[in-house]
């Protein structure tokens, strides 16, 4: 491949370029940055956001949005925690997945059948799920779980943290779905032109429900990991996660108008956010500035996007 070819390919994935650029930047400024242990650290920190963002990617490609991910995260965490207290790890995990998938499906059903804008639907379910979480826990954290459960958040295999392994597993699955399945093709089609998709025989409602269900399910998986890592489920879990997820997806090159975006882009979008956090911490930048830096990076990314 010649230079031009490579450049063109890279333009399709601006997030990769941005990622590499930021890595080089921090590598110059901090000698603790470019080490294996630091990178593993970054990946572990990113894994939770990334998993949620993978689900959000499908939702956004389909032309929707899911603001409820953070609240779904919290509700599945606390419900699971109370089951875990009862003893069975397997049952607890299953319950968490069930809660996530159920809440996601409810989003999907209201969006698809009620023909209400996803922004509004998920804004409402975000509030409702958060409220349910607080009622359920009476505002108190639930702590102390079996060690076999904590392994999900703290264990590692051959030096790689379990959360990172789960993240890559889910990345592979969602990547596969988006590229090689009917669901993936339909997701792009619904986001690109819903009318044309419908007239082509795509069961739009059904697939929308599946897409939102997946988003809820992935939020629950992320919740399992965090709960295991902290050995505690807190009612304030997941606050603001929807914004991180949306940011990662948009950094990855998706358009909120739908029909565009990739899971690879999202992975790097999430990594950019993680690296920024990590790098700024290593440089001892005050956390007060960190949000602003993230915001600026997002704006720059979107401006570059529009140039293309």
């Amino acid at each position, binding site marked *: 491949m010649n230079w031009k070819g490579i450049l063109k390919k890279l333009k399709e994935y601006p997030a990769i370029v941005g990622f590499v650029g930021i890595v080089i930047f921090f590598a110059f400024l901090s000698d603790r940055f470019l080490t294996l242990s630091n990178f593993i650290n970054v990946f572990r920190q990113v894994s939770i956001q990334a998993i949620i963002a993978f689900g959000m990617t499908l939702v956004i490609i389909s032309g929707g949005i899911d603001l409820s991910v953070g609240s779904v995260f919290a509700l599945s965490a606390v419900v699971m925690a109370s089951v875990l207290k009862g003893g069975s790890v397997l049952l607890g995990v299953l319950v968490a997945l069930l809660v996530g998938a159920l809440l996601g499906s409810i989003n999907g059903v209201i969006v698809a059948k009620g023909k209400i804008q996803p922004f509004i639907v998920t804004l409402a379910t975000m509030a409702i799920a958060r409220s349910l979480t607080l009622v359920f826990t009476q505002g108190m954290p639930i702590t102390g779980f079996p060690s076999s459960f904590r392994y999900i958040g703290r264990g590692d295999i051959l030096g790689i943290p379990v959360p990172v392994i789960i993240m890559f597993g889910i990345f592979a699955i969602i990547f596969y779905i988006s590229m090689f399945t*009917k669901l993936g*093709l339909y997701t*792009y*089609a619904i986001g690109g*032109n819903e*009318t*044309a*998709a419908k*007239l082509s025989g795509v069961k739009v409602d059904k697939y929308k429900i599946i897409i939102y269900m997946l988003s809820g399910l992935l939020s629950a998986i992320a919740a399992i990991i965090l709960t295991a890592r902290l050995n505690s489920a807190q009612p304030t879990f997941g606050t603001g996660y929807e914004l991180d997820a949306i940011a990662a997806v948009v950094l990855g090159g998706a358009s909120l108008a739908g*029909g565009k975006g990739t899971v690879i882009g999202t992975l790097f979008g999430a990594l950019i956010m993680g690296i920024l956090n990590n790098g700024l911490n290593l440089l001892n930048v005050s956390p007060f500035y960190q949000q602003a830096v993230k915001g600026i990076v997002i704006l720059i990314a979107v401006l570059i996007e529009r140039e293309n």
Partner: protein
Amino acid sequence: MRNIVKEFPGVLALNKVRFDLYEGEVHALLGENGAGKSTLIKIISGVYKPDFGEIYINGRKSFFANPTEAIQEGVATIHQELNLFEELTVAENIFVGNIKKFNISKSKMIKITDQLLKEFNFPIKASEKVKYLNTSEKQLVSIAKALSLNAKIIIMDEPTATITEHETKRLFEIIKDLKRKKISVIFISHRLEEVFEIADRVTVLRDGNYIGTSEIENISREELIKMMVGREIEEMYPKFNKISGEEIFKIENLEVGEYVKDVSFDVKKGEIFGIAGLVGSGKLEIALGIYGYLPSKWKQLILNGKKITPSRNMLDYGIALVPEDRKKMGLVLEMDVMRNIILQNTDEVSRFGKISWKKSKIIATEEVKKYAIKVSSIKQKVKTLSGGNQQKVVLSKVLRKRPEIIFLVEPTRGIDVGAKVEVYNIVNKLANEGVGVVFISSELPEIVSLCDRVLVMHRGRSMGILNKNKINQENILKLATGVDIK
């Protein structure tokens, strides 16, 4: 314009094309789908930059970096997709981008606009919101806008493709008026009758090459077609379907919202059944209603002996639809040709939800070949295909799975002569294979020549079904305007 060259990735859209335009003339630009007509006018109007070549206006070398510059220099373009603000009034649309210069009150704006509209005899009101206008009226707004900017050259890309015959007449009156005011018009159309009616000269492109320019008096229809297609077309309206008399489709008392009331008809095996009517007569909604896209009800629908009740996925029963508006309803513009074709045919290439891209590629390549769709590769985004080739993609994806009955809504809109004949051939073949064919069109010549019976709609109701011996333009027009015939 001299030596204009424009290359897109994988296609040479224009290869050393030249074009000239006199003051006050109507110059028609002809060519098959993908010949480069739209690309050429996009270069004139500053949308694209040519790779090579020069443009002169009044002997002065000109070059427009963007459409705004072109407009300032008096070159206005009415693209096929009209760019108007639906929520604004006619007057506001005309003044948008111009307001600073005038900086006037709303009422004055409406007064000035009404004057302008009156001067040119445009039957629209300045205070009307654009969203309440039909396509033809919106076109007039675009033209009025061009005139308000003192355009000297007005370019119209297939203005007649989406409007009725009557509205076309009105448009031509307006164009003649423009000529008298020394305004030049570049006019693109796939309808040769129109070209002979309105144009002074004609330039033909083929595959991005300049073929020739001629005074309209010095050229015959056949010669023109030959220049465009590169070969002779013997039969414009092939007809070789054989009716067997057996009934394959029947609907009684169809109602579609407020659009269609109490319509009944049946389609025989091998028959090409036509539906005609003016814009807004409900002829499109018949198809959308039966297909399940619009809420509808009926007393009885029988397809090949089976009774069918309204449902949302009529495709599963073998009822297929080629929708009217390919961009809004037919295609996912951001996706490539292959994915658009596969979208409606996933069951052929997928198992347990997994798509085989290998099979998809084979199918897409097959379809592209079968319908002679001009693409640089099956991975080309349909957004960048020429209008006619987009239409072929729609046809191919809908027809891939053989339906039991197909509703073709304006299937030849915007496609070239050669491709039209291909569509007619396909329609005949489908009928002979036993597929019920309902052909819905605003183009009377094709309805008259192709259909065995024609149902004519007027204001949501059927005015009657004409048998073959009664089908002619006059009868259809009478019924379509609500006049009974004996």
